[in-house]
């Protein structure tokens, strides 16, 4: 499942950044990928749609809250955390 989550998030970020999947590294930041604030809210939306969950994210304070967007890896683990919290 972890691999699957990671692959799907990388695909979402790559689509937004118009990059090949192979160009999205786990340590990349959104800046590295060229994902601006508009693209970021699209990414959040795509993550919510893909995983059917609610991402706690406020564009006024993108850095605050539980959802760590500093790197690809941090986004993946934040999504994984949200997924394990989901009621079954």
């Amino acid at each position, binding site marked *: 499942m972890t691999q699957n989550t990671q692959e799907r998030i990388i695909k979402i970020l790559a689509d937004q950044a118009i990059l090949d999947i192979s160009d999205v590294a786990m340590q990349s930041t959104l800046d590295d990928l060229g994902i601006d604030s*508009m*693209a970021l*809210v*699209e990414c959040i*939306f795509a993550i*919510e*749609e893909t995983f059917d969950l609610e991402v706690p994210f406020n564009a006024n304070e993108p850095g605050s809250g539980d959802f760590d967007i500093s790197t690809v890896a941090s986004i993946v683990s934040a999504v994984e955390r949200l997924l394990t919290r989901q009621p079954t």
Partner: protein
Amino acid sequence: MKRVVITGAGTINPLGHSVTQTWQAMAEGKCGIADLDIRDVDRLTVRIGAQVKNYSAGDHFNRQKIALYDRFSQFAVLAAKQAVAQSGLVFDGELAERTGVILGTAGGGVNTWDESYRAVYEAGKNRVHPFVVPRLMNNAAASHVSMEHNLMGPSYTVATACASSNHAMGQAFNMIRSGQSNVMVTGGSESMLCFGGVKAWEGLRVMSPDGCRPFSANRNGMVQGEGAAIFVFEDYEHARARGAEILAEVAGFSMTSDASDIVMPSAQGAARAIGGAIKDAGLTPEDIGYINAHGTGTAANDKTECAAVRNVFGSHADKVMISSTKSMHGHLIGGTGAVELLACIMALRDGVIAPTIGYEQPDPDCALDVVPNVARQAKVKAVLSNAFAFGGLNAVLALRRI
């Protein structure tokens, strides 16, 4: 006061994806009305409309742009690109800072409203795309045009239902006339041919189930269209100094309010706007050779409009040609005056008067020369373009050959 001329024109509408295609279709009396090809059409009573054909957003815009552009913005951006290209203007420095965009639209991003309501109400989803608001806002088209061409002057959107484009172009005209700007990009755009959009119009019971036949005794309502037309308006001296090709002169503009009824038109309000535009242009009724009518094909409009023309023109009313090109491109609501201005330019430039197609039976209440069914060759020196909106807001432009 400065003189104002048109130095660029662009369009995408049910008759074509360019001004040339549109003029050709108008000259040939082609009909852009057909069966609607939209989702859930089987649940509609009105199943015809004038859609923009052979169009795919992906042929013109990348995914990021499409995420931000409702269909009405897409049409505006495409039409503006043609208009600016024709004008030959490049916007930088002071010209960029003083040139603005004034566009008309009645509904703005109606398709975006429709799709997101579907998502939350019909599909029961609890989230919508993040760009719903910037897509649907009425000023989105004007803003995207300003961004595409670096236009940093006075820019806004006018929403006066079916007169939106004429009000917008009238504002742009006055802005140049007064010396506030040398150049303005103006016109209008509309796209409400979606399930919710057509369903709303059905409710009023003014839509025709089978065709748009303005001024014809057997007319039975309006047919909706979609699309955009955008123009570059420019100070005459500015245009001449740079040797620009001039399509026509915008000579006068008048706007009035009926102050009487939210949907029924008034002959007095229309007449005041028609007479006002002629006077503002420094012309007399005898100077006017052609009127592009509002001509919706409803019982109420056509009768009232003909009475207003007769009132203003007196005996000259029998000599002036008046046609409704809505019979071909449908009623583009807030974008309609802009597409209709193309017929006015064609009349002045090429001496081709676009016909009122679908004309089958004379109506004694509309006993004017409505240029029935076939275009006509005629040299005219000045023309009018009428727009009379729901809410009783009237806007008439006067154009002159140059």
